[in-house]
């Protein structure tokens, strides 16, 4: 029997999204399943963005906190370190200090931080709130304004606050992350609601909600796979924005990245365990569809870049 490679091609294509002003990066744009260069076009590498925050990362576990020792007390220093020392291609600034249970910083504080950090480095930026629906509507409006002209990604818009945040992103010319909770239908619905406001679907990034390896990864994995198949096979334009995996935040709060080896010898060395946990969560989500990844540990970023090199 002769073997004929069972290639598949699709009618649909993921939108390419370009961010940044002086320095730009593009991700998405493929018309095939993740890394299927053997049967379709994959014009852009997935983009990995280093995560920094507006306040010192006191709640990050030691493995990842200590690599930013001496720079993480100041977001500008931290951003410079990521770009100059770690060669970050993009940065995610999470305004976690604005959360009412954190430092409850004001929207003006946040805007000031955004201006300072964006003024200090030239790589593309993703500016995220604290995931507090009410507070984010204030904070992200001012943050988007402060970042005007930088062609950032603003996020995350959720069902409860998308109107304000999408309007702010639109007014200042940014891209937007739309986040819903692990359900393809909710994802689709939110993307529709946002585009009905006049926000172009080509400027959206879908976040179906991340989960860490061992903590629901299979849900995110399958929702991403289904969204990708809807975009490609069914040519569903609402599902064609690229997908983001907000990995670091979910990985660096679970037990496997924190429990010391002397407490759990059967789990092995803590540092390598944490780094691998972040990297393997990221690569698994890339294989199911994520084109934009938000990570914390430089060694995890390097490992994921190495993995992408082998695939492209």
């Amino acid at each position, binding site marked *: 029997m002769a073997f004929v490679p069972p290639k598949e091609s699709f009618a649909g294509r993921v939108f390419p999204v370009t961010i940044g002003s002086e320095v730009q990066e593009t991700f998405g744009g493929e018309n095939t399943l993740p*890394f299927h260069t053997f049967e379709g076009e994959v014009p852009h590498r997935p983009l990995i963005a280093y995560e920094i925050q507006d306040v010192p990362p006191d709640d990050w576990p030691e493995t990842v906190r200590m690599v930013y020792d001496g720079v993480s007390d100041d977001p500008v220093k931290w951003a410079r370190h990521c770009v100059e020392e770690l060669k970050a291609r993009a940065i995610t600034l999470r305004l976690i200090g604005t959360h009412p249970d954190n430092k409850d910083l004001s929207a003006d504080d946040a805007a000031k931080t955004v201006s300072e950090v964006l003024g200090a480095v030239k790589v593309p930026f993703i500016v995220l709130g604290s995931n507090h629906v009410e507070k984010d509507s204030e904070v992200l409006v001012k943050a988007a304004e402060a970042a005007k002209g930088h062609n950032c990604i603003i996020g995350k818009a959720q069902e409860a606050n998308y109107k304000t945040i999408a309007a702010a992103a639109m007014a200042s010319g940014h891209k937007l992350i739309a986040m819903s909770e692990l359900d393809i239908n909710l994802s689709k619905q939110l993307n529709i609601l946002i585009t009905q406001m006049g926000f172009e679907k080509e400027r959206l990034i879908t976040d179906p909600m991340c989960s860490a390896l061992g903590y629901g990864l*299979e849900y995110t*994995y399958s929702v991403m*796979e289904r969204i990708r198949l809807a975009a490609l096979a069914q040519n569903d334009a609402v599902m064609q924005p690229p997908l983001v995996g907000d990995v670091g935040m979910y990985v660096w709060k679970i037990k*496997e990245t924190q429990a010391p080896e002397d407490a759990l010898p059967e789990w092995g060395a803590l540092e*390598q365990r944490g780094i691998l946990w972040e*990297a393997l969560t990221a690569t698994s989500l890339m294989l199911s569809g994520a084109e934009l990844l938000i990570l914390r540990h430089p060694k995890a970023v390097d*490992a994921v870049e190495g993995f992408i090199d082998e695939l492209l």
Partner: protein
Amino acid sequence: MALTGVEIFKLLPKTNCKKCGFPTCLAFAMKLAQRQVTLDACPDVSDEAKRILGEASAPPVRPITIGAGDKAVKMGEETVLFRHEKKFVNPNVFALEIKDTEPDDVVEGKINDLLTSEINRVGQLLRIDAFCLTGASGDAGSLEGLAKRVAEKAPDVPVIISTEDPEAAEAALKVFGGKKAVLYGATEANAEKMAALAKANGAVLGVRAEGLEPLTALTEKVKSLGVEDLVIDSGARRAREILEHNTFIRRAAVKKNFKPLGYPVINFVQRDDPTMEALIAGLGVAKYASIVVISSAEKWKNLALFTLRQNIYTDPQVPMQVEQKIYKIGEPTEESPLLITTNFSLTYFIVSGEVENSRVPAHLAVMDCEGLSVLTAWAAGKFTGAKIANFIKESGVEKEIKHRELIIPGYVAILSGAIEEKLEGWKVTVGPREANALPSFLRSRAA
């Protein structure tokens, strides 16, 4: 591809004799198509029909078991490309490679790593499943020596013998007689000899070719030599080729019922850097490998890979559950708080993790709600005041704590009255809605 009812009907005797228990041959054919009956029920079916129907009903990826006894593992039988369509059936095997050129202490260390690799996660025992013994020296005696050593120290662990030299293969195979080893190393050049050895020793044959066309030709050749239990290697080593070949193999088998590639796939992912090796192994886990050969088994790496395999092979229709009981977090005393939640594994992981983060020792009552999360279980009537009261009474927790206060999830605040009514002498406190607010909630109470 499975046959339709009408296609099957054409192969039946069409006598409507009813001996099968159905009124007509067509009715029987329909039941066959739905796999609700087997062909044995028809006494008059021709051998030709049996052959065709047998082939059509065989799973697209042939089931293969390696090893013997408790540690034997089954592979293959996969039916889909994406896990949301249907459960991935048989989790991949992780095989730890030992080369016959490695020094004694390394060999000893690796045997020990495998034997101590077992971890319990969500009630499943996970481990490195097999050894891959590689004849890297080119010396038959050396591989045989390694085989003997492994057989002595780890007699129950399934093995893959990796060599292209029939003489070395024969010597090593004899060590694992009756244990269904894999003889990996049939190529175009040595296929006859290797097939004969696999047959003589009851081994599974691993075949390797460079690319999918030569691999197709080789599996057909080996099959014609009388060996049907195969695992296949397309020669892919880099991630890009592994993804391409594994995808084409699975698609050909599942969508085209292409028999020459309908076998479990073996991937070799060894790398110098263990983190990179784990990421490539993860590609194999997610993308259709049945055996993933690795070069080292550090505990941190094992934990991540086992967890990924468990996640990918979870049945998407059945939620993962944890055992119903009162879990102790930290070292709780009889004064420590008591919280309750449901037994959906994610709910349990997240709640217990946050309680742990709070550093406040506590008792966590995890109630069997058939693996549903709190709100879903409440909506489905499985997490009700009466059921919670019953569970608390029967759990025996009243003997372990002095106080009578139960903290319930904020989303089911509505239950507090009903629980207090059924659970006499108890006070119900409404906790936060989201688990991530537990640390501040518990700490402020403890202060």
